[in-house]
């Protein structure tokens, strides 16, 4: 395919290939000889693990990366945020919650154009100098998910029906899920190539969610550490085969861009086997901190109407990590924890969670944090604590009605993978070639400064100053 829409700036174009959830162990080590495109970029550039943010989850990680701000500064602490101190005020976040300028906002102010496809938290689409196809947080394909709007119809025609995400993740057969993931990736990369070759651009970025979806759907067939691992399962190579197909798609993308283009392959967090799950609200109940009006006869999601708030000091939300909230007098509607006792209670909870053993009585290695210890600034309403069970090896289950505090299934169905702290980066700059060196100690907060410096712009004072080339 020929290329080569002319960029407007004097700097070479900058291209980001985002692979949500791609871990170093698979890309750099296990399958590097099967991934010729990524391996070439590694060989001719520099690469290494990329430390994620708190929490290491798609939302807020990609926006932390593209604004250079932490979750506290963004005021986005996960897929759902508390809008008020009411008990039922958790709502799903989207791009409207992001008020800090992204890299493409800053470049646009300088007259530089961007092509953006699938970057999480770009729904609802905001004006951008260039073209934008938003992300899986779009309600469905009937929504307006492009900027400009007319681009949606153009993409549908070009790729034969654009696909934002896999549908019915837990309802379809694994074979159907696998087919959907492959189809979604092909269409997204086709759309990206179309925009790269028809629009002027200086900065372009695609984020492929298929990597994350295939990990969560199929990791149990890959990793003996997973409780549900089945040796020689017919789907044991599903993830490997997907990575190979993805590598071939990336090769096609690279064939469409000018040879001087700087390429950054990056992921927002890594992946690892889900070794188990802690039923966080069961832990709180056993500690006398959470009281239900009536114990449920079977496992069910915890809802505020089940809770006896007059006898509850703390409750929690599950997910890849746990958010713990305190029922504070004068803050929550029926709060009972005196404000003067909040700090002592948070410290008590940190001790409780961090000392929790695993189901075999061995140390679980959980970590619990007060948000002010993690963030440079706190905006909107943060959780009172963030808890990573087994330092992310175990997930957090928010449902109640379990016999114990451990389970080996996600409360929304089986899950293969949990998130991990280390994602990846591969930086390939033809004007400044690397020697295939693996470097350590980089974080996703170094991505935005790297891009801005490339275009001769200083990182904003709210960003950390160092780029990926600096430790």
């Amino acid at each position, binding site marked *: 395919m020929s290329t080569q829409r002319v960029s407007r700036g004097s700097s070479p174009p900058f291209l980001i290939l985002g692979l949500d959830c791609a871990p170093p162990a698979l890309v750099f080590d296990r399958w590097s000889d099967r991934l010729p495109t990524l391996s070439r970029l590694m060989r001719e550039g520099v690469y290494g693990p990329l430390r994620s943010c708190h929490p290491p989850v798609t939302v807020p990680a990609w926006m932390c990366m593209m604004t250079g701000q932490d979750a506290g500064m963004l005021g986005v602490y996960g897929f759902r945020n508390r809008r008020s101190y009411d008990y039922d005020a958790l709502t*799903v976040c989207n791009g409207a919650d992001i008020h800090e300028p992204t890299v493409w906002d800053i470049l646009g102010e300088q007259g530089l154009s961007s092509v953006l496809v699938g970057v999480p938290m770009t729904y609802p689409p905001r004006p951008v100098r260039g073209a934008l196809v938003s992300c*899986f947080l779009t309600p469905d394909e*009937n929504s307006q998910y492009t900027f400009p709007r007319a681009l949606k119809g153009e993409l549908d025609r070009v790729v034969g029906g654009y696909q934002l995400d896999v549908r019915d*993740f837990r309802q379809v057969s694994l074979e159907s899920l696998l087919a959907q993931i492959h189809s979604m990736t092909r269409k997204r990369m086709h759309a990206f190539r179309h925009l790269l070759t028809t629009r002027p651009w200086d900065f372009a970025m695609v984020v492929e969610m298929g990597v994350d979806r295939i990990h969560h759907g199929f990791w149990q067939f890959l990793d003996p550490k997973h409780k549900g691992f089945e040796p020689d399962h017919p789907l044991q190579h599903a993830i490997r085969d997907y990575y190979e197909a993805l590598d071939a798609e990336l090769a096609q993308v690279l064939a469409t861009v000018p040879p001087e283009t700087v390429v950054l392959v990056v992921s927002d967090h890594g992946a690892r086997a889900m070794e188990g799950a802690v039923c966080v609200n069961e832990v709180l109940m056993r500690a006398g901190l959470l009281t239900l009006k009536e114990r449920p006869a079977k496992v069910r999601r915890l809802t505020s109407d089940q809770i006896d708030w007059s006898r509850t000091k703390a409750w929690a939300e599950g997910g890849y990590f746990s958010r713990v909230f305190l029922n504070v007098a004068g803050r929550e509607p029926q709060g009972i924890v005196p404000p003067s006792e909040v700090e002592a209670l948070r410290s008590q909870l940190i001790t409780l969670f961090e000392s929790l053993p695993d189901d075999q009585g061995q140390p679980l290695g959980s970590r619990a944090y007060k948000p002010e210890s993690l963030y440079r600034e706190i905006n909107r309403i943060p959780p009172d604590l963030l808890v990573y069970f087994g330092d992310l090896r175990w997930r957090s289950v928010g449902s109640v009605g379990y016999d114990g505090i451990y389970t080996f299934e996600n409360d929304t169905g089986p899950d293969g993978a949990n998130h991990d702290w280390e994602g990846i980066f591969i930086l390939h700059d033809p004007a400044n070639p690397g020697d295939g060196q693996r470097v350590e100690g980089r974080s996703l907060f170094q991505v935005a400064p790297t891009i801005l410096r490339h275009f001769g712009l200083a990182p904003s004072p709210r960003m950390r100053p160092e780029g990926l080339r600096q430790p």
Partner: protein
Amino acid sequence: MTSAAYTVWLTGLPGAGKTTLAKALAERLLRQGLELEVFSSRRLPPEVSYVPMSWSPEARRDRSQIIAEACRRRMAQGKICLVEGSWPSRADREDARLRIGELVEIHVSTPLEVCQDRASHVYARASTPELKRDWHEVPGMGMTYEAPEFPELSLDLSFLSTDDAVEQVLALLKSLDYPVERQQAMGLSPEEAEAKVRARLEALGYV
């Protein structure tokens, strides 16, 4: 919920038929009960104080920015805006799109020779010896007219009737989910949208 407000921005050579199309389109949308304002390079927002009526690129840029900001304010009140004029600079129009967001760019692509016949008084400025100094200010003559690269719609009014052109614009607006009549139901409510996303996130195990 999709946006109820938007701006239709008509661009093209002098004499292309933009003013005629804008008038017919405005009448049609007003008749459907929509609140609408029309701006052009000569018809600036009433809240704007005196702006020198020059046709230099700088003056044109200033006016497009003034109008874009006015559209943004009107749209925040739920109004529809219609902008017509040559607007020969692609960069100026891109800036307007960035400021306005929900903008539909329509290129009235009537060929130059037809435009010259229709607006001979304008083009005379560029060819009459005593007015030669205006040559550089006439788009398509001394001033380059940069046609849009990605307009939402192109309409050649040398063979298309105004009524047909209006129908094409309305069809485009409908296809983009913009309202073309009052109280037209549009998209999902915020609650419905959140419920859909939340269900998917739950299935994925995120929440």
